[in-house]
């Protein structure tokens, strides 16, 4: 079965004066129907840019210079703006990290909720209103009727994120792109939102592309995971494989850098030396090599190709074939 969303060799650059600075190079991954795929990486790894490019939402300086984004076999990059409009919000919906600015402050929740259904599904005002109330209840808002009449500033962060999810769900999309949906929220609210996304997936069968910097969220949510570093996808596998048998030195380092809740405190945290490169267009070979604990000893450092190291497990690093752990 072909994947619902298939990204192939995506290349994105940003115009910086006259120069083009590459932000994403050679990113490929698939999202199957009903699947939760997480894209994990640190800031500046290109994960949000990748997500924005799917719906043609890149800032004007951003340019897709190569590759394709196939949604149900159609290349989204070759669609006209009108054709893309018909997909955006209808087939693919998106929610954002920035809960403060992602809702229109001068329109009520109700008018923002009903807009998509009236436009894409041809609902009447009454139908859309009734459906909106149902959706808000579904996302866990108790007093949905009065919520419809509120303005965004009257709601807490958690409520706003629920409203955004309800708006995103209103046209029953096949794919929901969630760009760090809980980064601005407290952990107990984050836990509620993740629970909600998971149960909505069970109920509606929609696929979710979840972007996060938190490997903990990957462990809780993901079916499949793609790890991004410096504009590249460095490892891709199902969640269990990735978390229990990571192959890439960066994935391993990332997991060891997070302090656990019941760790032995005498153990020192593994800190990756240096910091995430901000400009990586000129880097050749493995982009993690300058920070990698194996450093110069790595026989593959000049290669950096994505290779299938086990069925369904792709990695740019094959250190594990050599044996010992980080």
């Amino acid at each position, binding site marked *: 079965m072909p994947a619902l969303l298939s990204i192939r060799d995506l290349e994105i650059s940003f115009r910086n004066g006259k120069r083009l600075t590459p932000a994403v190079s050679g990113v490929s991954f698939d999202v199957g129907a009903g699947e939760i795929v997480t894209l994990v990486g640190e800031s500046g790894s290109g994960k949000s840019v990748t997500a924005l490019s799917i719906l043609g939402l890149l800032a004007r300086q951003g340019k897709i210079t190569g590759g394709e984004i196939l949604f149900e076999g159609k290349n989204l990059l070759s669609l006209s703006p009108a054709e893309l409009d018909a997909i955006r919000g209808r087939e693919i919906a998106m929610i954002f990290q920035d809960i403060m600015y992602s809702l229109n402050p001068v329109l009520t929740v109700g008018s923002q909720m009903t807009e998509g259904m009236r436009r894409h599904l041809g609902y009447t005002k009454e139908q859309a209103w009734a459906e909106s109330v149902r959706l808000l209840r579904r996302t866990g808002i108790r007093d949905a009727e009065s919520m419809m009449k509120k303005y965004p500033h009257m709601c*807490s962060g958690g409520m706003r994120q629920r409203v955004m999810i309800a708006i995103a769900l209103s046209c029953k999309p096949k794919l929901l792109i969630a760009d760090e949906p809980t980064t601005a929220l407290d*952990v107990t609210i984050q836990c509620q939102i*993740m629970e909600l996304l998971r149960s909505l997936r069970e109920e509606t069968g929609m696929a979710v592309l979840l972007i996060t910097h938190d490997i903990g969220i990957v462990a*809780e949510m993901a079916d499949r995971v793609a790890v991004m570093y410096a504009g590249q996808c460095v490892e891709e596998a199902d969640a269990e494989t990735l978390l229990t048998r990571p192959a890439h030195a960066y994935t391993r380092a990332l997991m060891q850098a997070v302090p656990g809740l*019941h760790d032995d405190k005498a153990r020192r945290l593994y800190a990756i030396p240096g*910091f995430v490169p901000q400009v990586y267009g000129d880097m050749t070979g493995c982009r993690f090599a300058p920070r990698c604990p194996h450093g110069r000893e790595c026989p593959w450092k000049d290669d950096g190709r994505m290779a299938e190291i086990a069925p369904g497990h792709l990695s740019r690093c094959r250190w594990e074939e050599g044996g010992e752990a980080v």
Partner: protein
Amino acid sequence: MSSMPVLEAKGLCKTYKVSGENSLFAKTFSAVKDVSFAVYPGETFGIVGESGCGKSTVARLLMCLEKPTSGEVYFQGQRTDNVPEAQRRKLRPRFQMVFQDSGSSLNPRKRVGDLIREPMQYHGLGSAKEIDARVEELLSLVGLPAEMKNRYPHEFSGGQRQRICIAKALSLNPDVIVLDEPVSALDVSVQAQILNLLRDLQEKLNLTYLFIGHGLGAVHYLSSRIAVMYRGRIVEMGGSDALFDHPAHPYTRALLDAAPVADYALRGRNRVSLSGEVDEEPPDGACPLYARCPYRTEECLRFKGEMTAVTGDETHLSVCHRAWEG
């Protein structure tokens, strides 16, 4: 722990006036309610809680950056909250603070060397030459090359800027450093570097830390004792391993359960989850968690606010009248 505490809070309360009719809290807002704890020499005392729980206000009160509405602050046995600023200024070099946002706590128009030099000049610690040598020593102490003293803050990454802030705090040879979310704004790989640095410095310089954070793993990694705050109160306090392994208060348990853990084996574990959000008002005189707690009983309506020892551990205190039964 029979020695004199370095920092002590006794019954601290802080009430802010909140004006405006649309405000959630009509007139005043109690940010901190009856907070008491003591920090002993050489230890790290952690405070965790979600946004708005009052943890940063406690830090500001202890640093005498704000005046408590009632209650007392002691530094090495001396009262500091009600003495004239001129007198307090003599003590200030001995308690220093590091803030979350390293970008806005460094003057962008000054060179890094001058920023670190400034506190020492102000307090007259040595000749210009001695201070110059000390600046270089401090930079290398926090892991930055001494040549970097001529650069401006914007030339550094977030992690490096946080190192500069730490160097600045160390410049006056303090006894205690209050760290207010020092790693929350950093990427995980850099977070681990800073946590390790803080730990090394503590050992080398025999420092005492008050570490405030919402990242549970980070707080646990550094702290020997931890207090959990909710709606302005300390709801549980104890040794960090005891608190994380055997939480006695339902809020602590929910907080720990909500934190995503990077362990695939723990996916879908049973958790204590709280309904609703932090701003849900409990009824008058009830436990602050009443509106959200899954274990509430009649008795929780009559909240006493007394910290009682958890069975079998005199140093582990909780305000919940129900010993943990889960």
